[in-house]
């Protein structure tokens, strides 16, 4: 099934009033997000966090950047699904224009992209933004 858009995610998460439902939603998103081929779990694609590992692969399709991401932690996968909703299959221009900080604040999950969390999510966001900056599609 297709993953929800950022708008749908914002609406969905606003609907839940307790943390448990919100985290279950993240876990479900993590389950639904397509798995990365384990062969792609290489050192070059690894973004190491001290709590969990995250992998990222990027392909260029026309003027869009297509990402595949993965983590060994299910809640981190759910968080990655939120990031994918914002960045996947988007142009470099759209990626760089998107305010990820505001988006995570809106979702009340900003703690997960703060520097205090060693889960690799912040590093993935930075990696995606760097890829977008470096791509000649800007």
């Amino acid at each position, binding site marked *: 099934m297709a993953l929800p858009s950022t708008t749908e995610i914002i609406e969905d998460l606003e609907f839940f009033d307790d943390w448990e439902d919100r*985290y279950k939603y993240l876990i479900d998103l993590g389950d639904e997000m397509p798995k990365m081929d384990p062969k792609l779990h290489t050192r070059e694609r690894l973004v190491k966090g001290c*709590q969990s590992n995250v992998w990222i692969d990027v392909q260029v399709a026309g003027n869009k950047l297509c990402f595949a991401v993965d983590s060994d*932690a299910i809640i981190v996968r759910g968080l990655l699904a939120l990031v994918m909703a914002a960045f996947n299959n988007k142009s470099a221009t759209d990626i760089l224009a998107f305010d990820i900080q505001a988006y995570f604040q809106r979702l009340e999950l900003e703690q997960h992209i703060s520097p205090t969390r060693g*889960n690799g999510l912040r590093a993935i966001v930075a990696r995606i933004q760097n890829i977008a900056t470096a791509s000649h599609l800007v």
Partner: protein
Amino acid sequence: MAFDVQQIRQQFPILSRTVHNKPLVYLDNAATTQKPQVVIDAIVDYYSNYNSNVHRGAHQLADEATRKYEDARDTLASFINANSRNEVIWTSGTTESINIVTHGMAQKLRTGDEVIVTQMEHHANFVTWQQACKASGATLLIAPINDAGELITEEFIKLINANTRLVSIPHASNALGTLNPIKQLISEVKRLTADQALVMIDGAQGIAHSEVDVQQLNCDFYAFSSHKFYGPTGLGVLWGKESLLADWPVWQTGGEMISEVSYQDAKWNTLPYRLEAGTPNIAAVIGFAAAINWFKQLDIKALLEHENALLTQATQMAEDFSGLRIIGSASAKVPVLSFVMDRGHPADIGFILDRQGVAIRTGHHCAEPLMDRLSVPGTARASFALYNTSDDVEQLFVALKKVKMMLA
């Protein structure tokens, strides 16, 4: 003297706060302990009433600050039963303490010399020696552990020979909790090398959970941090035998550590100052002395029994919890429960516990080679301190039930 945990808890203001609207259950004490009010007060008192640089001011405040600062050294020296106050070097933490020793050893080691560490090291006591050996051409030997996370004494002993220059072992493992029989290990090293090899103990995880008497241990260096022992952050101690420290290669150069300086040359100060360049962390030193004085008046035997009872209770509940596996089941442990679950990466466990007010640590615990040795990506670690209660242990397992349910 009885040990009244409720009375102790009242002295730690942070323990009455809530996290995500739940009462805080703080089980990340191996990372850092909370601070009693007396420590907070000592720091506030210093900054409010006699803040000044030490050793060099020509005024009353400098005299007061210097006296308190040097009194703290005496307090610490007596607490660990050092031979002399000159053996207590203030550092920024255990990591810097170890670096002073490795930096000096790197200058003394030669090709063919051997340094021994264990498979359970924190990176601070591993990367340091790995790099010192690389730089000097010495060989680093790594003593193996068994699946319970205990050092295999016979294998350790086999590594010791005439080439052994230094052995560095953790008092206790931060990731697993294993409490090493350091007194016995030190005496083996000394016996097998005719007192030639030096022994360093990384005491970061040991000092708060055992009674340390450096003379009785007969090691050469013992390193630890204030913040894991109810004191302020940014301060550590390197204790070393005076005969060694007196001409140990200086670590940092600059102010304080010199006796005379000309445009051409410089001479080093005497101990302890020769290894303490620059303005020290005065507030932390004064706060740490308050922590030591506070700790000393507790019934230490009773508090260690209390911590051990928490570990026993937690271990029992963990063994009864299906889908959970304890990592590190040494027969002697500091109060650390490291574990993994069938469903749930350690990071997931940490997120869900946090939402329930339960603070633990997850990940590789700065011990990546150890995680590889045990074939786990990391663990979830609950670590206890003297202010934790049996109810905290219960709350941990209530919260873990929620983890299991949510990740089912």
